[in-house]
């Protein structure tokens, strides 16, 4: 890394320390943890956009798939729901899979004009069987204890395991989606992935037997100690006394610090792999494909399958980040996934940091998240300045101050436009 680039990171740390001193260390660590998660998402997008030039506008969907896995892995299983409707769900999903397999089988095996009719028959029969079993099972599951359960629950395994599973689930989804949409032109790919991510969110929002939907799953187990247990632990209280700190305040900081350690570890591992991949012959091949498809194709590179490969890898990284995000929050809130926040904001991070450079993605993730949070107080200051000539409680002033938080969207857009115009290679350009 060059000196200038190191300076960016140092400046970020100084700003963060400033937040710690001026606002509170809790806020600073909270921002830092989210910065790390954002950096991982940006890393995933960079693998797709920076290495291979794929415009994936469906990041939100893969992040949500990761979040879904966190619930499915770590939540306590709901035994009653399983015994009531478990068999029905499994059976109906099996029928669904068999139907799809049959469609492909018929498509391949029959060449007669009857093929279309057979396929339609298969679809109708499969749909009829599936619908009957499925709706009965869903009703049974959702009717059991709807206030606290009403879904199948998870496996009750440690939540850190879901980080790996989240990556795998997102990779599986990416494989399926990539097979369908990667043959498309660049802007069609963006629109197709945008649509897929909306569908994934719709499923997570409305399939209550699986995710509790908009009732949210809360209270997921933590990989780090709870504050309430910490303040009752001997060594911790002793430690707090020796450095002369309030144990309760310190416990909250300590928990955030534990998360920080875990996240930093994941980021370091992913970063190591990404850098190795980028500097390997594989990475050079990817960039060759990105810069000149025809030439790479003439050299015998299979472009579609390479693209599929990078698409899957990038989405898996986003899935990991999604699972980590839900871990940090301790809950899954399907209503909170919006494309502006989880797709396009990540794009701003990658473009600002420098497409094609992994360090750039990390830097972009950190800076943009920092600004995303700090733009809110900044917005209030700005609006206060604009509305200074008005007297207090003037309706326009009240209205503008109320909506001051929305100015951060303007800031993000302005950053993206400025970078695209004046520094299209980003803060840390690709080498």
């Amino acid at each position: 890394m060059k000196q200038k680039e190191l300076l960016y990171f140092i400046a970020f740390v100084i700003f963060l320390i400033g937040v710690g001193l001026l606002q509170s260390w809790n806020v600073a660590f909270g921002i830092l943890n989210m910065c790390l998660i954002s950096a991982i998402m940006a890393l995933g997008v960079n693998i797709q956009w920076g290495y291979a030039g794929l415009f994936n506008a469906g990041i939100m969907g893969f992040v949500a798939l990761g979040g879904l896995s966190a619930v499915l892995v770590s939540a306590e299983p709901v035994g009653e729901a399983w015994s009531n409707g478990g068999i029905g769900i499994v059976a109906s999903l099996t029928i669904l899979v068999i139907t799809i397999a049959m469609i492909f089988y018929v498509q391949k095996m029959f060449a007669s004009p009857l093929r279309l009719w057979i396929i339609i028959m298969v679809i109708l029969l499969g749909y009829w069987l599936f619908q009957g079993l499925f709706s009965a099972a869903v009703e049974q599951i959702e009717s059991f204890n709807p206030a606290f359960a009403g879904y199948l629950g998870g496996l009750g395994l440690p939540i850190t395991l879901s980080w790996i599973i989240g990556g795998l689930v997102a990779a599986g989804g990416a494989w399926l989606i990539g097979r369908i949409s990667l043959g498309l032109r660049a802007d069609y790919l963006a629109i197709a992935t945008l649509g897929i991510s909306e569908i994934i969110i719709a499923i997570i929002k409305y399939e209550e037997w699986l995710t509790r939907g908009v009732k949210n799953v809360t209270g997921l187990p933590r990989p780090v100690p709870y504050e309430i247990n910490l303040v009752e632990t001997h060594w911790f209280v002793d430690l707090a006394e020796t450095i002369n700190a309030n144990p309760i305040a310190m416990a909250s900081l300590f928990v955030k610090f534990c998360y920080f350690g875990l996240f930093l570890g994941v980021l370091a591992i992913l970063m190591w792999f990404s850098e190795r991949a980028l500097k390997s012959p594989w990475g050079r091949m990817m960039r060759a494909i990105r810069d000149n498809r025809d030439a790479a194709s003439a050299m015998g590179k299979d472009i579609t399958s390479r693209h599929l490969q990078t698409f899957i890898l990038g989405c898996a990284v986003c899935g990991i980040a999604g699972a980590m995000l839900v871990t940090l929050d301790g809950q899954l809130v399907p209503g909170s996934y919006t494309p502006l926040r989880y797709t396009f904001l990540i794009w701003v991070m990658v473009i600002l940091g420098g497409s094609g450079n992994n360090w750039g993605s990390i830097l972009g993730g950190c800076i943009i998240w920092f600004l995303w949070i700090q733009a809110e107080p900044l917005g209030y200051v700005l609006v206060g300045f604009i509305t200074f000539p008005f007297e207090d409680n003037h309706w326009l002033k009240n209205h503008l101050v109320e909506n001051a938080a929305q100015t951060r969207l303007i800031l993000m857009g302005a950053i993206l436009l400025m970078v695209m115009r004046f520094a299209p290679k980003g803060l840390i350009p690709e080498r």
Partner: protein
Amino acid sequence: MDFVNAIVLFCNFVLVPATTYGAQLALGALGITVIYSILRFANFAHSELMSWGAMLTLFLTWYLQSMGISAGPLPTALLALPVGIFGAIAMALTTEKLVYRFYRRQRASSITFAIVSVGVMFVMAGLTRFMIGPDEQVMVDGQRFLIKAIEFKRKTGLQEGLAIKTSQVITIVVAVTMAGALFWFLYRTRPGKAMRAFSDNQDLALLSGIKPDRVVAIAWILAAILATLSGTLYGLDKSYKPFVFMQLLLPIFASAIVGGIGQPVGAILGGFVIAYSEVLLTYAYKRFVTYLVPRDWAPEGLLQLLSTNYKFAISFIILVVVLLIRPTGIIRGKVL
């Protein structure tokens, strides 16, 4: 009688809403198409331009209402529409001048344009939400219904009522007029012909003295007019909510692509294909079938193919199927 009841039911819940929605989508898709044919990129900011235009219209509507001016039985928003359109044109031309012109000179790739339009989308979304706030607003006023369900029942003696909202009729009338005007402009007037020539072959068009900046400006003006109209009509038909427009982006894109991107006729066709599929697939046919079959055969379930929650999934699935089977969209041929 049961047969007539079934038809009325079908009209009330499927035909009328789907036609209205289709007209709104078609207007939006026409805007995407115009920009695509001239500048060759997918404009992610189009739905926010719709939101912007509709918001300005709404502001003036409130002002007019507070002054006591109304359009009689029609919604006041129609009076405010010209100002909304003017504001949207100003916005579109400003983005063209400050943002897109630079990339046009560089002949940047379509993906660069798309990313830049994401930036514009952010700014516009922020401005709109900053000015009007994120809450839902009611736009419609005046006489809400042209035909009320109760009156319809009383007059015809049928069990099912047919309700037609004023906004629905306005939507369809405006959409038809607007589409006609657009085709007249593109195929009969000099600037329209210049646009088509530019879209067909930029270099040849330049050679024959067509000014690129002017063509692009006209394209943006057309896009802004279409965007404001579709945004306002959608707001009148349902309600104005800044978040909704982001979700409308997908069906609008789908309409433009399904019909054949860069084809004005295709955009209209695509809009209706998407709208009808969404409504037809998510409508519960239980009552409709109950009217048509003998009493013993009445269905138990809702006979709904897909839950309404998956409306967006439908536009997307149609998009993917069309892209896989017929990548050019329904209508083939030269762009514009």
